[in-house]
């Protein structure tokens, strides 16, 4: 960047070179450093959540296994696994991490709209992680599942402080997301460089914008619901207590009014990353740009009016089932627009199978499988049969553990050179992809069969008849675990690499503004307003 005479930024620019550890990482007001903090949080969250999942798969490897002997411990582990993977892995990686790093750069802004608020969002999330870990480890642990349904976590069935810590961890993570959402919306609407109209804005920014609106409108409803839950537990109210006239199903409505937008909160940023990667490595502009942008807007809108499809077995009326089933199936339309436009982008392109592209194509392939089982589950009648068994587990892990996680890795391999200035080792990146691809498919594909055969979810044991596929699934989880070690080697190789990279190391396919600045991106970018044609 050219040096500027701008007083304030000059000051902080200078300060950067003398910044000690405390000032840089504990007092940061820089979107890139805060993004790095978020990514660090995501790595820690993924490790903890991943280790919990391997422990669970070890227990389920053989019937009547004795690794986890207490049901309460099992419940605490599934609860913590779900909460941590959602709130402390996927969201901080995609929104806090890549969103912070690249949204300001892509729109040509020097930073986020509210830099201090941005940092506080991160510290709220870190505080929440402390709480969720206390919830896992204190006493019997918080064991109501990530959906937190009463009466499972009321004062009678989950006494003790652990469940309160888990509930407050969601308050902390929720406030973090809410403040982050306000920050992203203000940044994207107010700080685009001249010439960057909404209809020229990169799709990742569109994805983050829609995600931020979902967070803004959904998180406060969750906050209300868990506030009522905490009051029921501790302060003698009866919102969800039938003895006082309360209605436990109401909690499910409130929870899923947040919970369904939440699944799009996790997958829309992934859609954004995949669009960039597919376009870059096909050396073609994305097919149907406007359709892609507005498909995300439609997904976001429809995401708010389908929540009770999570409650088909919660005694909702037949009329409600009909409505929620049909509304849910409608989501296949904008999602189809996304999938077909990615394929059309690749069509006739000069495709290069670099590691990020492998993850992106893996994403498309596996997300379609998860989407297809989603169409199955959207049918209220079928869902009655499949809801609380492993078919459902397989479905949402195909869209999350493969969908969202594959997009996290696609983004990582796509941008790590821009973030560190060093290339990743292509060979080991591909080893990571293929081992992970095999591992997760081996883990989750058999779960479809287990579910169709009737194996219920959330138990630490199962009938002998389910032994075969459970064994296969557990082998898969070990492969994914080993694959993650390959990822850590890649990380090590990146940070010890002596090689440096050009501004735009992907070549002509990469056209967004982050490729116009050096690699690694300097501490401050776009201190002079870029002009977009």
């Amino acid at each position, binding site marked *: 960047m050219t040096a500027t005479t701008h007083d304030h930024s000059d000051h902080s620019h200078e300060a950067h070179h003398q910044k000690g550890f405390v000032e840089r990482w504990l007092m940061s007001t820089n979107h890139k450093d805060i993004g790095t903090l978020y990514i660090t949080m995501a790595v820690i969250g993924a490790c903890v959540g991943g280790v919990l999942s391997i422990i669970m798969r070890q227990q389920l490897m053989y019937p009547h296994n004795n690794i986890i002997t207490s049901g309460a411990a099992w419940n605490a582990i599934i609860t913590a696994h779900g909460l941590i993977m959602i709130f402390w892995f996927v969201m901080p990686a995609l929104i806090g991490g890549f969103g912070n790093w690249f949204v300001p750069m892509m729109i040509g802004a020097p930073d986020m709209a509210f830099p201090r608020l941005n940092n506080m969002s991160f510290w709220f999330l870190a505080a929440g992680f402390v709480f969720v870990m206390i919830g896992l480890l204190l006493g019997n642990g918080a064991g109501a599942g990530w959906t937190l349904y009463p009466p499972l976590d009321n004062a009678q069935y989950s006494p003790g402080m652990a469940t309160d810590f888990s509930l407050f961890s969601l308050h902390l993570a929720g406030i973090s997301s809410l403040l982050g959402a306000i920050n992203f919306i203000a*940044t994207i609407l107010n700080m685009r460089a001249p010439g960057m109209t909404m209809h020229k804005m990169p799709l990742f920014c569109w994805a983050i914008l829609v995600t931020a609106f979902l967070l803004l409108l959904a998180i406060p409803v969750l906050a209300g619901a868990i506030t009522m839950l905490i009051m029921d537990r501790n302060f003698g109210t009866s919102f969800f207590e039938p003895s006082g006239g309360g209605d436990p199903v109401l909690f499910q409505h409130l929870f899923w009014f947040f919970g369904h937008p939440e699944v799009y909160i996790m997958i829309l940023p992934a859609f954004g990353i995949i669009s960039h990667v597919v376009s870059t490595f096909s050396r073609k502009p994305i097919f149907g740009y406007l359709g892609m942008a507005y498909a995300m807007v439609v997904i976001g809108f429809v995401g708010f009016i389908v929540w009770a499809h999570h409650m088909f077995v919660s005694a909702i009326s037949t009329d409600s089932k009909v409505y929620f089933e049909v509304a849910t199936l409608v989501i296949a339309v904008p999602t189809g627009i996304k999938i077909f436009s990615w394929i059309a982008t690749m069509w006739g392109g000069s495709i290069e199978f670099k590691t990020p592209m492998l993850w992106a194509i893996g994403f498309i392939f596996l997300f379609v499988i998860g989407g297809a089982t989603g169409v199955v589950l959207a049918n209220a009648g079928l869902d009655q049969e499949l809801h609380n068994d492993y078919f459902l587990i397989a479905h949402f892990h195909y869209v999350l553990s493969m969908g969202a996680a594959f997009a996290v890795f696609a983004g990582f391999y796509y941008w790590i050179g821009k973030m560190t200035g060093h290339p990743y080792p292509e060979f080991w990146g591909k080893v990571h992809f293929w081992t992970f691809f095999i591992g997760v498919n081996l883990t989750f594909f058999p779960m479809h069969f287990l579910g169709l055969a009737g194996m219920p979810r959330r138990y630490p044991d199962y009938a002998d008849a389910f032994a075969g596929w459970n064994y296969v699934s557990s082998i898969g989880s070990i492969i994914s675990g080993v694959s993650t070690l390959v990822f850590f080697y890649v990380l090590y190789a990146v940070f010890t690499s002596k090689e440096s990279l050009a501004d735009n190391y992907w070549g002509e396919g990469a056209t967004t503004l982050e490729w116009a600045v050096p690699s690694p991106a300097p501490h401050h970018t776009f201190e002079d307003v870029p002009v977009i044609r």
Partner: protein
Amino acid sequence: MSSPAHSATDQIKGTVPHPYHLVNPSILPLCGGVAAMTTFAGIIVAAHLHSFVLLGIGLLFVVSTMFVWWRDVVSEARTPGLHKVITQVGLRYGMALFITSEVMFFVSFFWNYFNYFFFPEKMGTAFAPVWPPQGVTTIDPFAIPLFNTMVLLLSGTTITWAHHSLLEGDNKNTVRGLAVTVMLGLMFLCGQAWEYTHSPFPFYHGGIFASSFFIATGFHGVHVIVGTVFLTVCLFRAMKGQFTPQRHFGFEAAAWYWHFVDVVWLFLFVCIYFLGRSAIVAG
């Protein structure tokens, strides 16, 4: 990306410095995170171990962090050249979005209320399907609640009086308008406090009507307290002459927030106090 593609190499390196306000490194965000964590841990400890020490420390920490943070924001806003027009617009976005999220927070409590108001059978078979539940004597909507409604509506006009005076550069009447608004806010809070202490139904184990009533009106009351503090800060700033007819976003944000609190009250009054009243009401 895309057909509107401006390839990275196409973009012209600018020569104009950006107009935004980038802040210096600050320890306050970390303080905010630790303060929130301490407060929430304090609530848990208070509920389970009946010690309020941690909660007190946490709240003190929260309030002092907020105080220092906003003192910094005010002094930055008053430093010429830091908050240019586009930064002021950004702050407007921020406040409007924050209020939007607050609306959704209240949606959850109204959702809870309407769940039983429209479907009283959801109270379960142990209760007669009527709302308010049998045996509940409610507060007379035309006693203190109507009075409080008038107080809040009046405060909405006095804040507008202050706003118009501000726009016309009449600082004396701005201060007067704000002072009256703060007084009305306090008057409302006194009314609520009297109502709570004389409530015909108890909060603790009072059943679903009491729970729904107290959480909705209680969180509204908390927002009135926050709004009153916000207006009080504006009052002091107006007395110091910090607002000009051109620049007074702190005041406007307080006014927006106050109107939001006002509108929530109108819904509470109509839906809970009036439509949810029992045949026999307590004066």
